[in-house]
């Protein structure tokens, strides 16, 4: 691998990306490229240093430091905005899958058992064949509604599970 090719591959790397083996091997045997990489790394570090994010220091005495006026003004605006966390109704916790399964099973079993119950037997006796079609339509609508509610209320889960979130090309 030539110096130019190795360096180009190095330059194409992203932040914190692993250096390919071929490039590493080239750098091991080429002092000029090694120096180039060292200079470039140093330059990138120096450029990023002023805006570097450091760890948060929690002061033992919160009132000791004078607050930044811009942040103090922003915090005052935040205080005036009528939005308090935890917002009512946002803390729904984990959705119980058992509850959904039990309700689904109850729905299906209910529809299966109904024709044999006293109410079902009476309905068939009174309406005859006219009972069947509306009953099956009702079953279909109820099960579709249940599925729609299940997916709709757990949409976050499905989006994450199947990677459906929008990612720029």
């Amino acid at each position, binding site marked *: 691998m030539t110096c130019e090719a190795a360096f*180009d591959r190095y330059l194409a790397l992203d*932040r914190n990306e692993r250096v390919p083996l071929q490039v590493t091997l080239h750098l091991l045997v080429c002092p000029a490229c090694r120096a180039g990489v060292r200079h470039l790394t140093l*330059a990138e570090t120096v450029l990023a240093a002023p805006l570097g994010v450091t760890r948060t220091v929690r002061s033992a005495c*919160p009132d000791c430091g004078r607050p930044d006026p*811009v942040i103090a003004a*922003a*915090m005052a605006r935040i*205080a005036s905005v009528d939005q308090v966390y935890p917002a009512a109704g946002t803390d729904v916790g984990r959705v119980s899958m058992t509850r959904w399964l039990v309700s689904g099973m109850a729905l299906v079993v209910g529809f299966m058992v109904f024709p044999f119950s006293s109410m079902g037997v009476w309905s068939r006796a009174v309406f005859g064949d006219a009972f069947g079609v509306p009953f099956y339509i009702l079953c279909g609508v109820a099960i579709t509604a249940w599925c729609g509610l299940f997916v709709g209320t757990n949409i976050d889960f499905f989006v994450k599970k199947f990677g459906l979130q929008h990612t720029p090309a």
Partner: protein
Amino acid sequence: MTKTESSAVVAHEDTVLCREVLAGNTAAFALLATKYRKRIFSLGYSFFKNADDTEDFVQDVLVKTYTSLGSFRGESLFSTWLMRIAYNTAINSIKRRREYTSLAEDFEIMDTSGNPEDVHLRSCSLEAIREALDTLPERYRVCVDMYFFYDMPYADISEVTGLPVNTIKSHVFRAKKLLRGRLDEGDKK
């Protein structure tokens, strides 16, 4: 602690602070704001080019971030999400001047103290980046800035700006190549 480890620590810390804010501790938001104030200010300054408008912008971004925090799902880093809010706020602001000015042009707004060697290296690098930026349309300049000054990876830049990763990659590559050339020249002198 390596750079990657420290960014992981910072990211974890942000998640903890976000949870605290959502649990009702507004003071935790002040810590997040302090942590990212400089970044928001720098990004704003590149669009507004004066301190007063930029300070108003910082406040707007912080208020927006606080009010939208409930919708932050943690699918990206908090810092990336915050930068996206800042970038969109700046883009949609009627106060902003027409063009984005790179930090390479206005680097003095940042605290740039350091030893003479760092100062020399920085000025050399800034010159190379300025040269690279001259060849770029305005909308792509922010990508080069985000890579070099905000220490952001390509995917995060793409998420913030909505530009394709490969476009960002090629612009940053060109800037890096110029930077390398400039550093080599400096070495030979």
